[in-house]
């Protein structure tokens, strides 16, 4: 697959994750008010909750693989903020993998903290990409500024925007993770 194909594939997965997060938010908020949404929320929780750790692991693994593909195969040099996001995402892979295997819900607070930290960093990174003047100066570093947009798919999905979707998906899944019956 070419870089274009891989980046579009990852972007589509990010859209899928965003749709899931959005649906989760609507069901969580609307379920309190509208009884039909409440029933849909309960059904979704029953279906997804027991699989949430495995799904969160899958998102983290794909995110890590995508990040390594961009840096090691496509030769897109990670910037400072990219590294901070990697620091949050990469440990989630073994942590969530082992937790999913052992069905260990005790991982939830640790995973949520990592995911929310990554979410905050990627949000700031996306903001910097859109408003480069938010940087402390209006200068591009000679080597690799954080404002540099390597990839932009579907009109808005840059690499940190995809990471943001991944972190949001992982955080939501860890919030709704339930024991299997």
């Amino acid at each position, binding site marked *: *697959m*070419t870089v*274009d*194909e*891989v980046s*579009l*594939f990852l972007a*589509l*997965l990010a859209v*899928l994750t965003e749709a899931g997060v959005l649906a989760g938010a609507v069901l969580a908020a609307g379920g309190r008010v509208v009884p039909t949404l409440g029933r849909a929320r309960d059904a979704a929780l*029953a*279906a*997804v909750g*027991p*699989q949430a750790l495995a*799904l969160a692991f899958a998102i983290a693994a794909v995110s890590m693989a995508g990040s390594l593909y961009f840096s090691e195969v*496509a*030769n*897109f040099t990670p910037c400072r903020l990219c590294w901070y996001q990697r620091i949050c995402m990469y440990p989630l892979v073994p942590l969530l993998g082992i937790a999913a295997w052992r069905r260990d819900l005790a991982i939830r607070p640790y995973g949520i903290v990592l995911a929310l930290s990554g979410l905050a960093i990627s949000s700031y990174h996306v903001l910097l990409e859109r408003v*480069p*003047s938010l940087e402390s*100066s*209006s*200068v*591009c*570093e*000679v080597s690799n*500024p954080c*404002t*540099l*947009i*390597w990839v*932009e798919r579907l009109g808005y999905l840059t690499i940190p925007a995809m990471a943001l979707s991944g972190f949001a998906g992982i955080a939501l899944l860890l919030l709704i993770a339930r024991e299997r019956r």
Partner: protein
Amino acid sequence: MTATQRRNRTRARNAPPPSRSTWLWVGLVTVVIGAALIAVFASRDSSSPSQPGVAQTRPVQITGAPLPALGSGADPAVGLPIPEVQGAGFDGTPLAITRDGRPKLVMFVAHWCPHCQREVPLIVAHLRTATVPAGVDLFAVSTAASDARPNFPPSAWLADEGWGVRTLVDSASSEASAAFGVSGFPFFVAVDANGNVVARTSGEISMDTFDGLVARAAGRDDRAPDPTLPVR
């Protein structure tokens, strides 16, 4: 029908229906495969624009001592002679930035830098109406070009912006940029008629600052000092 076949049929009839979790995973895998197929087919005809025959980096020859990098304090390069750069433009026409007795403003731009992408159209629009003092030469250096980075190739980007400033193409290892002590993009070097640095600055600048740099290069310090520039 044999007894074994009958047993298998009964077992299949009595097997529990697939659980919601099974459907979840089947649906997910289907969507992922669908996304992969869409990615492959949708990317078939997309290719990055290229300009065949136009070199985006060219060898340069540098003579003279390199300038120190621009730091945050007073600029140590002010008063020092610029290194001379012999090279060529995008079309291969020889071009040189030398101590030729003419004041000049040299601008270093990188195609992938969002600040350069914002600055170039400002300068293009400004130069349509502004009058550069007679005898002052404007040069640009297209540097840090990389086909792995966005907005490549720089020749197409600058042409699209209507860039009319003579542009020297830096080498693949950005030797001209390093010789001028470039510390960030965009980067501006005002040079007086003696070939000495009058002022340097990096980052996006206002057109007042641009005019101020040109005036400094021309030796006219009658403008109000610009707070963004080191005062000399």
